[in-house]
């Protein structure tokens, strides 16, 4: 043990090791943060969540910071809620109930049209439904009447999906028609449509028919951007999945790597030490197992049995135990077995178990560590690959799951590159970090590879 600790300062002579360990520490820190900031159950619920959880987010929005690199600024999401901003609403009592005037002014100075516009009404009423009337004022003084309708307790008006409005506005898609610059001096409108920048007002006039009835409205002009990581097609904030994917990836990789390497080491030691039929048996089992198709078996288990991450983890470990590592460890043990100190130990009466645990295995641990470190990313990739194949745990937000969702929804066709790039980048960084660390360890523990 002391040997290993002494080698640690040697580790930091290698720049690759420093970078690798820093990144690994960063990943561990992110994992800890993710688990604390978003507890497990919350994460599951969030990720499963539907419209109610995520309705405020735009669909398939890119990360907000990408605007920094753009000349043509894409719009942000603008959210106005009378429940939280009561100043937008004026209430006047009228004959039967109240009359409401909700005036939402906002400045729109972006270079592109907002993809979606919606108004969400919540109303409190006793028997008669309240009635609302919406109109739109452009910066150049035009007023466009939008729609009149009654609302229930919870009513959504998706402006951009209003075909009648589209027809009324001359066939252009609603989000463009409401924001486009008209032709100059009565001439034709510019083609392609340009955004008219300036102050717009959404006017909602409503009436209630009984005392005590109330109307609240939330107007959302969805942007093309959201947050640090963007959103997916279900409006979910990808940061949740990216953050939570970290501890899942690391834990899976670590547990699988630990389970596999240590078990393999022990089996190889027993196999080499006892030799004879024990050795033959273990080696043949290993060879058969090496030939078995790893991925198809996992796919079968995932399809017919369970896709829970614990099932997959157990299956992966069981299938990996009699793997190539046994051959590597066996080669080292065969050599060590012939050492004079092993012979001496037999001569002073050491039994087989003692020799295996106290004399053979400690000799091999320094060689085990680099192998083990480099093995972690391969299990991380395995988990991601399984998810991309559709075998991931359906409830857990993992990096592989993000890629899977992206593919299923044609992300690359639609130009939503960030959806695929973000988890892939994280996978790559994890792989690189562990590999660099592992190679540095290898140089220390296997001095022959050391350059002079």
């Amino acid at each position, binding site marked *: 043990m002391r040997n290993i600790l002494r080698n640690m300062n040697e580790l930091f002579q290698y720049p690759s090791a420093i970078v690798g360990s820093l990144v690994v520490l960063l990943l561990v820190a992110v994992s800890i943060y993710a688990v604390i900031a978003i507890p497990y159950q919350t994460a599951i619920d969030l990720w499963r969540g539907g419209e109610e959880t995520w309705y405020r987010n735009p669909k398939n929005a890119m990360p907000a910071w990408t605007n920094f690199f753009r000349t043509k600024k894409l719009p942000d999401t603008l959210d106005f809620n009378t429940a939280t901003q009561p100043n937008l609403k004026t209430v006047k009592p009228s004959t039967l109930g109240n009359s409401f005037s909700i005036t939402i002014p906002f400045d729109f100075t972006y270079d592109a049209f907002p993809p979606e516009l919606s108004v969400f009404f919540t109303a409190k009423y006793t028997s008669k439904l309240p009635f609302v009337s919406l109109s739109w004022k452009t910066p150049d003084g035009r007023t466009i009447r939008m729609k009149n309708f009654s609302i229930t307790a919870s009513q959504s008006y998706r402006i951009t999906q209003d075909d009648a409005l589209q027809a009324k506005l001359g066939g252009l898609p609603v989000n463009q028609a409401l924001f486009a610059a008209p032709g100059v001096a009565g001439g034709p409108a510019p083609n392609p449509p340009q955004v008219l920048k300036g102050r717009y007002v959404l006017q909602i006039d409503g009436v209630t028919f009984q005392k005590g009835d109330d109307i609240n409205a939330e107007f959302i002009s969805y942007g093309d951007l959201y947050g640090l990581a963007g959103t997916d097609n279900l409006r979910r904030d990808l940061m949740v999945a990216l953050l939570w994917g970290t501890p899942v990836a690391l834990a899976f990789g670590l547990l699988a790597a630990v389970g596999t390497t240590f078990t393999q080491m022990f089996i190889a030691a027993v196999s080499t030490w006892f030799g004879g039929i024990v050795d033959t048996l273990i080696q043949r089992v290993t060879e058969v197992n090496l030939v078995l198709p790893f991925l198809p078996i996992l796919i079968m288990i995932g399809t017919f049995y369970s896709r829970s991450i614990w099932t997959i983890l157990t299956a992966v470990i069981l299938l990996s135990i009699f793997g190539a590592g046994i051959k590597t460890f066996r080669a080292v043990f065969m050599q060590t077995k012939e050492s*004079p100190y092993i*012979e001496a130990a037999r001569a*002073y009466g*050491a039994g087989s178990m003692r020799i295996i645990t106290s004399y053979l295995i*400690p000799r091999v641990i320094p060689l085990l560590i680099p192998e083990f470190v480099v093995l972690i990313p391969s299990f991380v990739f395995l988990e991601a690959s399984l998810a991309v194949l559709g075998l991931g745990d359906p409830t857990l937000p993992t990096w592989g799951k993000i890629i899977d969702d992206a593919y299923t929804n044609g992300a690359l066709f639609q130009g939503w590159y960030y959806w695929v790039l973000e988890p892939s980048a994280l996978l790559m960084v994890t792989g690189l970090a562990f590999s660099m660390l592992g190679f540095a360890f290898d140089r220390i523990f296997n001095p022959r590879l050391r350059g002079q």
Partner: protein
Amino acid sequence: MSAAQVDHTDLKKPGKLVEMEASQDNVLLSIQDLQVWFELRRFGFSHAGYVHAVDGVSFDLHDGEAIAVVGESGCGKSTLMKTILALYRPTRGKVIFEGRNISEMRREDLRAYRAKVGYIQQDPYGAMAPFMTIEQVLEEPLLINTHASRRERMERIEQVLTEVKLTPVGEVLPKFPHMLSGGQQQRVIIARAMMLNPKLIVADEPVSMLDASVRVEILKLLRGLQESHHLAVIYVTHDLSTVRYFSRRIFVMYAGNVVEKALTQDLLLRPGHPYTEALLAGTSDPDANNAKTYKEIPPGEPPSLITPPAGCRFHPRCPYMIKDLCDVEVPPEFKLESEHLAACWLHRER
């Protein structure tokens, strides 16, 4: 061809096949017609012959006696030692220790036997686990074979380390093997061999990997321990010049057999076997005149142990070979003088 002639005059007495006369003390170890063969397998399956590593060895070792076993590589001396240490099983023949056949011992008895035989190996660094401190290295035999408390173990370790003159004990114990010099490492190995109060020590080339100036020191230490503890010691070596300082009797081995047994001074002055003669001629003393002469030694190399030569195994290289005798029949042991036997037809009855 001016070979040193073997003085045959007083050796041409009638040869008889006898055992060595019993010495003062009891017989501690008795080797009887021991044969140790290793099976050769082709491709791990089919049988391809045997390596006759030890092929008919008999001798008695008494309590407190120091003997040397001398021979070149491949003669079987290491295999013989490892069989005595119960690391190999005899193919035929017996190894009898304190009256009991070790091949018939089961686990507990075998463990007790191993505690009575200490082992010193050639490579002192290789004989210790590099990841263990000296304290751990020395504690292992005690942990395995006794139920002594920690305090008792530490006391014993201190006692033995003092005897091998590795002091101050407190400084030595926490070190790792690579921090000690070759001589110090070998002292630790000797200490470990002494740890369980053995009756017999097997020392397989204990000083050949050490520097010249240290060798004698270690050999003297061993000799001192042998005398003070009345230990039987088998000193295995290929270097004849060291045996004088160490052993009372010498056995010379060649190709799996013991070809000569004698008291040390008798062997050095009047070798009875041509191979012994060759070994003596081949061993140099520091003398500037050596550069002026060529050594007269038999050509060739030790034979294959898989298909050894018929008759006397040395006959293909022997300058005194007698046709139709040495190449046909295996010579028995002839008695030359008291406690001096040689397996060579030169001493046959006339």
